[in-house]
């Protein structure tokens, strides 16, 4: 596959933040996810869990709950405001002060009414209008904060989890009609109040509650009596979620386990059913803060920052992509920009940018050797963002002379001097139109900065292309007009690039399909058609993570370089395509073969898995590779200590 000098970069101390809340829109199959830093991410579950949208967070703007109303996404947090998001422009649309102190929860019913639970003990009803939300009325005010809420599916009752108790409200009258007392923890401190973290109101008036004493309790909502107590843990049970058909409830605990309860007939011949604790899934090391059951899978997230999709295998007839366990660690976009000529790396954090110069080595060695460094990598610049909003994108020109970043409120461009004495000067007076950008990109000769504002886009070379809802447009930069549109494809492109010499556009989609589009001929190339005819290898299609970057080897125009989190791949278009029977990961085999035998075993996909947890991979102008790794172990070691658990034999 060719030999490269590889810069193995591990100084990018990227640290994702904990997942706080989730909400699943079954209609559009989108999962909205809120992190502790206030950012909101939208995943498309119909498109291989692709991270479609990221709305950057804001300082002092934490989110406690998310909820969908139709296609609209709302959030509420301890800052006391209800926020609606503009999912087109990826920014908060407006915020509405609720005047009830911090808001712990927000839920909506199918009729389009919001309720929020406030610190001051009020349950407030809001009406969702076309242009915003409007306060409707308060239910009876209670002593103590309202932590959790759940609508009865009919919309006439609301269960509210509070300190030490659950209240059931009649929505019409606004009065509390039931008061369910929750026990304090058995072993622990009696004086410490039990927090009812979540409640779930089922259509048969069964109420599930989970609390800080480690219990999941089943209540009869008609009579207000306790049916069953399941002591799951010594610590908190933080999340509950019910499946759509109400046959299964899952609970997430501080120990990182997800426990499933199922509505099962104890005797197979009889119809009478009861709730039985069944499976336990352990995919997290820390608290499970957010949990959603989406029918075929359980989606969980928490303090350990990863999003886990645990499929329920009994719902699948055969093995497919959705029947595998998925873990999403890294964002599906680039946080690293590279100046190929100047050998600089720009690392993007929510709060700052870091500029590094790569180390140098003039040693030579065999493949696999570690070369001695002549100069060490060097942090040149630490640029703190201005304002409260987090950075959403950044770019570095390939010569290393320009740097740009954008937040939801502003775009900033800087002139860089990195030769002898490092200096940075802000370029003033950017056009007013450019208030924020989703993607920034410098042209290859560093003479232009392209910014995509109203939709996500990637810009390149002498042509420019934008994407919106999986559409790809090609613009002519000389004439500044739309050149053509690439035929629609159902899956979102996760990475694309324009070949510097042949001017072919290579696109890799979230479902791992690869297309090559000739911009000059405005049609797919022969190679692309051949690839589609033959089909990609199953091992390629069933990979876990999307390809996040496509680039080309200027020395060898046949080679396309791309990478995802677990591998990087060189596609050599001059070699035959693999069919289903060929060994796909063949690098080890090739190494063991003699020179004469090798050509018969070669195929177009050369996959290298020796670098793991890849954030970025770039080819420098001197034909050396830069590989930015962020080992998951390093992320885990920076997490706070998990709750203490008794380990056997300790």
């Amino acid at each position, binding site marked *: 596959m060719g030999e490269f000098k590889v810069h193995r970069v591990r100084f990018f101390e990227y640290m994702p933040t904990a997942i706080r809340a989730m909400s699943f829109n079954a209609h559009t199959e989108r999962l909205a996810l809120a992190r502790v830093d206030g950012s909101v991410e939208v995943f498309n579950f119909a498109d291989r869990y692709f991270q479609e949208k990221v709305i950057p967070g804001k300082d002092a703007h934490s989110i406690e709950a998310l909820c969908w109303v139709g296609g609209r996404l709302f959030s509420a947090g301890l800052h006391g405001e209800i926020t609606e998001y503009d999912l087109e422009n990826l920014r908060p649309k407006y915020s509405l002060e609720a005047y009830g102190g911090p808001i712990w929860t927000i839920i909506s019913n199918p009729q389009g009414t919001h309720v929020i639970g406030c610190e001051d003990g009020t349950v407030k009803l809001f009406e969702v209008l076309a242009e915003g939300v409007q306060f409707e009325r308060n239910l009876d005010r209670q002593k103590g904060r309202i932590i959790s809420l759940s609508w009865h599916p009919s919309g006439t009752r609301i269960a509210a989890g509070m300190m030490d108790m659950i209240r059931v409200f009649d929505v019409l009258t606004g009065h509390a009609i039931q008061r369910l007392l929750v026990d304090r923890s058995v072993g622990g401190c009696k004086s410490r109040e039990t927090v009812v973290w979540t409640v779930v109101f089922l259509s048969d008036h069964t109420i599930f509650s989970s609390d800080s004493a480690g219990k999941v309790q089943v209540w009869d909502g008609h009579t207000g009596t306790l049916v069953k107590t399941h002591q799951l843990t010594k610590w908190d049970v933080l999340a509950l979620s019910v499946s759509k058909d109400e046959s299964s409830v899952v609970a997430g605990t501080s120990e990182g386990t997800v426990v499933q309860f199922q509505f099962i007939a104890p*005797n*197979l011949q009889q119809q009478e059913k009861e709730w*039985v604790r069944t499976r336990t899934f352990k995919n997290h090391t820390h608290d499970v803060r957010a949990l959603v059951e989406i029918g075929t899978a359980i989606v969980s997230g928490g303090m350990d920052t990863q999003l886990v999709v645990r499929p329920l295998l009994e719902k699948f007839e055969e093995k497919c992509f959705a029947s595998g366990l998925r873990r999403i660690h890294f964002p599906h976009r680039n946080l690293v920009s590279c100046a190929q000529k100047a050998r600089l790396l720009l690392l993007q954090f929510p709060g700052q940018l870091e500029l590094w110069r790569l180390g140098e080595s003039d040693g030579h060695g065999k493949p696999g050797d570690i070369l001695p460094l002549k100069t060490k990598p060097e942090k040149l610049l630490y640029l703190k963002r201005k304002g409260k909003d987090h950075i959403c994108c950044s770019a570095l020109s390939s010569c290393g002379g320009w740097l740009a970043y954008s937040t939801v409120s502003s775009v900033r461009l800087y002139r860089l001097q990195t030769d002898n004495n490092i200096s940075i000067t802000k370029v003033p007076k950017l056009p007013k139109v450019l208030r924020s950008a989703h993607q920034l990109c410098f042209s290859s000769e560093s003479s232009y900065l392209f910014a995509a504002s109203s939709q996500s886009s990637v810009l390149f070379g002498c042509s420019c292309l934008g994407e919106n809802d999986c559409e790809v447009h090609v613009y002519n930069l000389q004439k500044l007009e739309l050149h053509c549109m690439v035929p629609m494809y159902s899956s979102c492109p996760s990475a694309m690039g324009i070949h510097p010499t042949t001017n072919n556009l290579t696109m890799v989609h979230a479902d791992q399909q690869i297309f090559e589009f000739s911009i000059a001929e405005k049609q797919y190339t022969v190679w692309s058609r051949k690839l589609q005819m033959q089909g990609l290898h199953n091992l390629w299609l069933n990979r876990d993570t999307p390809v996040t970057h496509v680039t080309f080897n200027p020395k060898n125009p046949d080679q396309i370089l791309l990478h995802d989190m677990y591998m990087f791949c060189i596609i050599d278009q001059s070699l035959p395509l693999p069919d289903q029977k060929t060994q796909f990961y063949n690098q080890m085999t090739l190494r063991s073969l003699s020179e004469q035998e090798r050509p018969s075993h070669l195929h177009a996909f050369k996959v290298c898995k020796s670098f793991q947890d890849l954030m970025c991979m770039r080819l420098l102008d001197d034909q050396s590779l830069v590989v930015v790794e962020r080992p998951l172990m390093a992320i885990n070691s920076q997490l706070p200590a998990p709750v203490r658990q008794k380990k056997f034999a300790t």
Partner: protein
Amino acid sequence: MVEHTGIRVVHRGGSKINFREPVITSDSRFLLCGSGESVKVYSTSTEECVHDLQGHTDLVTGVVLNPSNHLQAYSCSADGTVRLWDFTDGILIKTFIIRYHIFSIHVSEKHVGVLFVVVPMANEKGSELFQLVAVHLPRSGDPEVEVGELSAVLCDVSPNPGAVSFGTGGEYIAAAKGLQLEVFFFKKQKSYRFSLKSGMNKGINNSFTCISCHPKEDCIATGHADGKIRLWRNFNQKKEYTYSTLHWHHNAVNTLRFTPEGTNLLSGGIESVLVQWRYTQENQKDFLPRLGAAITHIAVSPDGSLFCTSHADNKITIILSSVKVSAIIQGLVKDDCVRTDLMIDPRSKALVLNGKPGHLQFYSLHRDKQLYNLDIVQQEYIHEQGVDQFQVVKAAFDTHGDWLATVEERRQKSSELEINLKLWSYDEQTQSFVLNTTVTAPHEDQITAMCFSPSPETTLLVTTSLDGHFKAWLLADHSDTEESASWSCDFVGGYHLLKPGCCCFSADGSLLAFGFQEVVTVWSPTSWELLTTLSQPPGAVRDLCFGRLSCSKYLLGTSTKNQLCCWNLLTCSLEWNTPMDVSLLQADPFSENMAAFCSQSGSTDLFVFKPSEPRPLFSKKALCTGKVERAIFAPRDQMLESSEEYSQWLNRSQLYFLTQHMDLMTFSTKTEEDRLLASSKQLMVDDSVAITPFYLLLGRHKQQQQEKQELLTNPLAERTPLPQGSIAIKELLDTPAHVLPSASFLCSMFVRSLLVSSSSASCQDAMLTWGMLLPG
């Protein structure tokens, strides 16, 4: 040499009682368990063996209660039969001949007249595949019935009976093997299979080990090799089945059992802790720890008042439902090897050998019951692989059983050998042995042999060791001080730095012989003078034995180079020798006889001979496979009066030996078997009369009458005929109970009727029997 057919090698006592799950009867009074070739009935309250149900000719592989009659039990055996017993009276009712090696038996109340047995797929012994078949029992009055009809229910099941269980009301049967659980519904005639993913690549072995179905709800509990318990529900669907996991055991779950009401689930494993899980409240559990050894089976009485657990050390513990141990039935503890010799405690006549780790067990051969354990090492035993613990390797009693000497050793890897010699004195008050002296490091190397002097004057112990020395230990009497007597070393001797391998005292204690590799030395224990050396053809001396009684002038020795030699000590010359690979030489303490076990081409032959005679008294070829390393002559409690020459050597004592597979075997003669048969004949009754204790009593009287008549015809008979009172008895027994007058009235009438006869001891006998019967 002639083979004698009148003597058989039999199992007697010491067989495994933990091989299969025991059964508690529905009134919780008895416990049934297969033990070797018989089924034993124990009382759950007194731990005594009430009946020994004999009849099978091979290992009993399962016992179950007859679901249609709670006073009967089925037992299955490797001999291919299923037998139906009346266990309260110990009577064999029926034998069903199936002609397959049966591995386990299962019954269900719903399937009347059908037994489910596990047999090999192909009728070969070595077959690896097993199937569960339904046996439709033919309705026939014959005591022996051939069963023709077998219908396969499940194929490829585990031969382990714990891996098959009947579900709620017998509607389905669940069987687990490897990584697969199969549930067969009888009504639908449909089976569902659920498999687990192998966790082998993650280093987890999650294969199924045992199974138990909930008696009321449709829930199957399965135990797994990684210590997890899974509760399966909704298993009448291929996809939507579900299970929850419980995890407490750190090692394989050996057995699982639901209580009859289904409120609790009991599990056990190597941790020797009985875990009681509350059904549907699984995080509440009760433990009964320190049960002594790994739990292999759990049984629950049908009313749920008693549990019992079988343990790996051949023990059954009976546990009240309040999780308290109420009784322990202990069999002979058989580890995978016995390091000590087999010995007979001269006081209790019990067999003494290694028991639990660090203990000596005293086992009564006559009652087939462990008497007690003596803790020798007195250290906590740690259950863990790879931890070296002290082991009792040698033990010896003196002639009267006043002193016991034990040697324990521990060899840790790359460290020195630790040896302790302990001397125990018998305490009359506590009726057990009390530690008197501990000698740490009595020798620098392993002790090879140890024996007490049989002479009545001195209490002398001799030990020999691989360090090239032998030591004599004497009980030093400190009568002048307050301290009690203790043991100390009296003499250290050796011979040309050779390593002594064995030692032996002559019967009167006047001579002491050591085997120093190739050389036999004879010493006087009083003066510690080397009297003579006897050398023999090459080969180290393995065993030495002085002759007894009339043959006490002979010394016998065996060597590693296949020689059995006999020296005459009067002439100090070799009397005779014969080439034989003698693995063990054992002298009968009650006669001149010697037993030599010779290993030959993978099996063992036995020769019994007198040193003075060149011809063996008895020989048996191919006694058992493998080498016999341990054997003992045990005294009989009742002398046999066999006149036949070949069995005379068994008249006073009985020879027991341990085979390679740790089976305790012995020899039984024809006269002995006749005697046993006679005692069991008393229980044989006509089919026409119901079997009741009354009937048995009456029958005995009848028998006595017959005997008396026989005696009358005999001129030697002195006894008077039976009193006329028997008519009164008959009258009494024939009248229905509800029309009888009060017992006090009857009693006086009855006694008076007995007084009619002149006088004899026999009527007293009868009264005594009655006196015993009436309160019951």
